[in-house]
């Protein structure tokens, strides 16, 4: 009697194991994320989403479809980051220089931006589920009116969220961000100093930290940038967050195109970062011996 029970229970376990195999990929992914989350997690990760057009050309699709697939990759990677409790994610969606591209492509990108921004922020979707606040950073007056309206609406929908931040940089140029920040600093300094015309140097109060606190991203609560990832094998910064990429920001250049970027590209990057943090801690504990 007992042996029968034993055999049937082991058969049952075997069946359960087979069923489990089918779900193993999702479980393995979740476990991997949990292992990562046990170590130090970067507070702010930036992505330069490069390679959509090359990806599309490689697969014989239209460039617009490449950008569409890029949007799906964004959702995928964003969900991974949010699962890992990364507090702030910045993505380089559109550069001010990109307006030089063929008009058809720019129009398609504008349409994509308009529809997908609202989709991301709609009730029940990714941003609301994880309590993410959306910030659109850049010189939005360069966009057509419909896109600007969509941007305002999207930001409005998520403004009450405070668990994480998503910075979508469009149309963005780091030099533009820095120049705007400096202008704000000066305006503030002038506003405070009533007797500007008699004072010697009212601007002397502006330091690196003042400019830092006036940057569009920092003003809206972004912590310093920890990791910057650029896909498609290109090794450039292309005017993305030049100011924020100081001292401790690790730069990673991945050879995959953005629409193909996924968990198994992202995980080694996080591991590398955790390793470097560990080394830095060792150095601090055992008396600075790492080069600057």
């Amino acid at each position, binding site marked *: 009697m007992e042996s029968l029970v034993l055999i049937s229970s082991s058969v049952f376990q075997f069946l359960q194991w087979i069923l489990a195999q089918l779900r193993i990929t999702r479980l393995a992914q979740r476990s991997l994320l949990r292992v990562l989350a046990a170590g130090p997690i970067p507070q702010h990760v930036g992505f330069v989403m490069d390679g959509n057009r090359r990806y599309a050309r490689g697969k014989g699709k239209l460039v617009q479809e490449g950008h569409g697939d890029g949007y799906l990759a964004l959702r995928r990677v964003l969900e991974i980051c949010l699962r890992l409790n990364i507090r702030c994610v910045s993505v380089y969606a559109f550069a001010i*220089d990109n307006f030089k591209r063929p008009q058809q492509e720019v129009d398609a990108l504008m349409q994509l931006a308009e529809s997908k921004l609202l989709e991301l922020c709609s009730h029940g979707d990714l941003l609301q589920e994880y309590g993410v606040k959306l910030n659109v950073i850049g010189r939005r007056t360069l966009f057509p009116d419909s896109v600007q309206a969509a941007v305002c609406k999207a930001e409005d929908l998520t403004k009450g969220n405070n668990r994480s931040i998503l910075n979508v940089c469009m149309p963005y140029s780091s030099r533009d961000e820095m120049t705007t920040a*400096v202008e704000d600093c000066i305006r503030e300094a002038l506003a405070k100093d009533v007797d500007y015309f008699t004072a010697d140097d009212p*601007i002397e109060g502006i330091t*690196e930290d003042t400019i830092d606190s006036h940057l569009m991203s920092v003003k809206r609560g972004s912590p310093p940038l920890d990791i910057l990832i650029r896909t498609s094998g290109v090794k450039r910064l*292309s005017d993305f967050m030049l100011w924020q990429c*100081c001292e401790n920001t690790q*730069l990673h250049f991945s050879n995959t195109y953005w629409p193909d970027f996924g968990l198994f590209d992202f995980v080694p990057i996080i591991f590398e970062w955790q390793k470097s943090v560990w080394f830095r801690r060792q150095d601090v504990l055992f008396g600075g011996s790492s080069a600057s």
Partner: protein
Amino acid sequence: MDGNRRYAKLRGHKAVWGHWKGATTWLNLIDWWSYFNSSEKQEVKYMTLWALSKENLQRNPEELAGLFAVLTVTFRSIAFTASIHRSQVRVRFIGALTGLPQHVLGAIDMLERETENYSRAVMLVAVGYGGRDEVLRAVQDVLDSGEDLNEESVSRKTFCSKLSIPPVDLIIRTSESRTSGFMLWDTQSTELHFLHDKLWPELTARDCIHAIESFASRERRGGK
């Protein structure tokens, strides 16, 4: 020029030993550069070396004293290096030269004077340089001169622009995958080449050639 102290620690020496090794690599690099310029069809006309950052000046005084000694001796050696004079390289210094002891400033002065008549190539040495600091100074210069504050006017007042040197095209960094704000404003479209498993004293001529080949094969689209 990153990784000197780590190199020293790995071999059981003090940090200053690593800096001496680093200085040797620097002198070798000048020789390789000179050879490259004379033998290849294309010339690398401008080279910048980041010797000391603003943050480095916060290190402990003992190490700083050693570092300053290395710098002084290196600058003097460069002034008497055959390659510099053969290839007619002008050496100029950028960065905030504050907080440096007299002997370093003296060596800097001497090196600039020795090479001031040359013009075939330029070697910039960044001492006391901080990326954000450069932007801040550029901004202050723009405001002082009363110009309109926009991207172009700031671009005109960076250290390189003030010396009529074009913005940097390729940055090679050893031992880390960071820019640490080097040439912050100018790195808008700069290609980056990281040698993160090599420390500065381990740099070879081949690594430099690889970096240049990799640069030649890159497609620079400028946003289009």
